[in-house]
């Protein structure tokens, strides 16, 4: 366009008296000068484009033709912080939360499981995971709805330049590490249900298979640019569900798998007869605090930017968690006579779990309501339901994560609003119909579909994989080993020495 202007201008000057021409040239010069970036738009961006790109940095939108391939410091900084926070959730957050809840003789086994999973999953993620989840080379092919692609195998080509399919201003390598931290904590959550009685080798084997069969496809379906259930970002999503930070991918998948695994493996020796009280509620509470703090990286970080959506997620996470923690404590106080530390901690974690899928989509009022539900329904599950059915979900992965994640996914369908997140009513959401569901209601229907698919995949795959592992390496250690404690027998160490 700038070129055409120039040519037109030239032809026009031809037909004017010389003095006017000369003098007009000055005008022209002034004009040209100030529109110079426009003229050279093919080569370098115009001033407007440059400024627009800078504004895009502030507003976390597409930089357009300037500043492309460059991460933005505010967003990159926040995402590095978030990634560190999510790692902190597992090491040592979850390790302590779970570690405190087991018996003294098994505390190290929990820590070892968290550490071992962190190492194992990193290797899987580096080799194939990231590519299978966030690649797009399978796009168009049928499998592309379930797996991403092969272009990022071994993190090939994953540099500091943003992958704009996921974030305009965050380095892809940071994004890859951020998502790795999610991939680490998810299988680590499962450990809670089978604590104190599963062989270390069996856990590592199971987790390897589970990541490939359950986590990678699920994460792609929900978060991958070409994913089947990615309502918020995939214009061609088959199921227009939404999941901000992992209610289905992380909590439902781990929670339901945990239930199946704990049913297959059976209860701990002495379950129901011997005292199996937490050996250190102090550690458990420390872990809870760390989980809460780290979860800000998990939830607000899931905006993959330090923008207003992240800000909203920060607020809703805080409200839901605090309300759920207090609710659980008060329910205990009313029904049991005292509010326990484990109650406050369980409530906090439940609040965090339930708000997770909703956090970037709901308002403060929605968050408070979710907090109230999160502080009461899982309470019912870990006390009444578990007691009734008698399964040994040792640290309540099912009661908190499966129940909470499922509820959260569903409640997101009820409370999500375009007012706090414009992605729900623009872009891909307009094309795939999500926007309409959000505005006119009915999103819960799509959420239900996502819930059922997630549940189905987790349950069936875990059932099969657990039996495979059982056959190949065996699930449980010898009873004598379980008696003496996994710390000494499986890891050759003691947790505490006087």
């Amino acid at each position, binding site marked *: 366009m700038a070129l055409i202007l120039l040519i037109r201008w030239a032809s026009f000057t031809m037909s004017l008296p010389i003095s006017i021409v000369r003098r007009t040239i000055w005008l022209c010069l002034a004009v040209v000068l100030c529109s110079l970036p426009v003229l050279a738009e093919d080569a370098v961006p115009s001033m407007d484009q440059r400024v627009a790109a800078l504004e895009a940095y502030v507003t976390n939108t597409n930089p357009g033709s300037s500043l492309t391939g460059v991460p933005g410091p505010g967003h990159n900084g926040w995402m590095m912080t978030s990634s560190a926070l999510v790692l902190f959730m597992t090491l040592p957050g979850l390790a302590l939360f779970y570690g405190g809840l087991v018996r003294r003789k098994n505390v190290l086994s929990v820590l070892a499981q968290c550490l071992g999973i962190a190492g194992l999953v990193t290797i899987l993620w580096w080799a194939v995971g990231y590519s299978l989840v966030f690649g797009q080379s399978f796009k168009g092919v049928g499998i592309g709805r379930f797996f991403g692609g092969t272009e990022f195998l071994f993190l090939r080509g994953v540099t500091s330049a943003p992958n704009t399919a996921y974030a305009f201003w965050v380095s892809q390598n940071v994004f890859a590490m951020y998502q790795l931290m999610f991939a680490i904590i998810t299988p680590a959550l499962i450990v809670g249900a089978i604590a104190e009685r599963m062989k270390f080798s069996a856990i590592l084997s199971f987790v390897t298979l589970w990541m490939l069969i359950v986590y990678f496809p699920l994460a792609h379906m929900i978060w991958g640019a070409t994913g089947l259930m990615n309502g918020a970002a995939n214009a061609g999503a088959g199921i227009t569900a939404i999941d901000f930070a992992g209610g289905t991918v992380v909590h439902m998948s781990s929670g339901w798998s945990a239930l199946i695994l704990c049913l297959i493996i059976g209860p701990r020796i002495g379950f129901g007869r011997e005292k*199996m*009280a*937490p050996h250190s509620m102090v550690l458990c509470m420390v872990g809870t605090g760390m989980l809460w703090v780290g979860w800000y990286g998990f939830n607000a970080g899931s905006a993959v930017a330090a923008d207003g959506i992240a800000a909203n997620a920060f607020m809703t996470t805080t409200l839901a968690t605090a309300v759920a923690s207090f609710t659980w404590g008060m329910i205990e106080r009313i029904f*049991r006579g005292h509010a*326990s530390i*484990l109650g406050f901690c*369980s409530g906090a974690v439940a609040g965090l779990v339930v708000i997770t899928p909703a956090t970037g989509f709901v308002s403060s009022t929605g968050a408070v309501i979710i907090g109230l539900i999160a502080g009461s329904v899982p309470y019912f599950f870990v*006390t*009444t339901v578990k007691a009734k059915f008698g399964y040994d979900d040792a640290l309540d992965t099912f*009661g908190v994560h499966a129940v909470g994640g499922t509820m959260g996914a569903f409640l997101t369908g009820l409370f999500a609003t375009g007012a706090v997140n414009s992605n729900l009513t623009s872009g891909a959401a307009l094309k795939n119909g999500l926007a309409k569901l959000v505005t006119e209601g009915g999103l819960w229907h799509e959420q239900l579909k996502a819930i059922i698919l997630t549940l189905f995949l987790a349950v069936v795959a875990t059932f099969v994989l657990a039996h495979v592992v059982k056959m190949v390496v065996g699930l449980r250690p010898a009873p004598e080993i379980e008696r003496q404690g996994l710390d000494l027998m499986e890891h050759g160490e003691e947790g505490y020495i006087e």
Partner: protein
Amino acid sequence: MNLIVAIIKPFKLEEVKEALAGIGVQGMTVTEVKGFGRQKGHTEVYRGSEYTVDFLPKVKVEIVVADEMVAKVTAAVVQSAKTGKIGDGKVFVLPLDEAVRIRTGEQGAIAL
């Protein structure tokens, strides 16, 4: 010589120690123990699971004394450890054949 074993409530240890020191006892050995008895324990509930704790924290005090001190020491312990409430504990007296002070090799009552 006799070995006097007293099982008492933990918070009474300081008082018992002072009472014993008061009557000239120069040494004793203390162990943390758990006691089961008539005193009811309590129930702890962790999420769904209920545990009855019937072993309560107690302190065991062992004092070896010369024969002539036995009654006096027993009385001092009973008096200083008593709250009058259930679970106050017991005093047991056992016969002792010999006592040796490791540092010096002294034997008998002089070793105490």
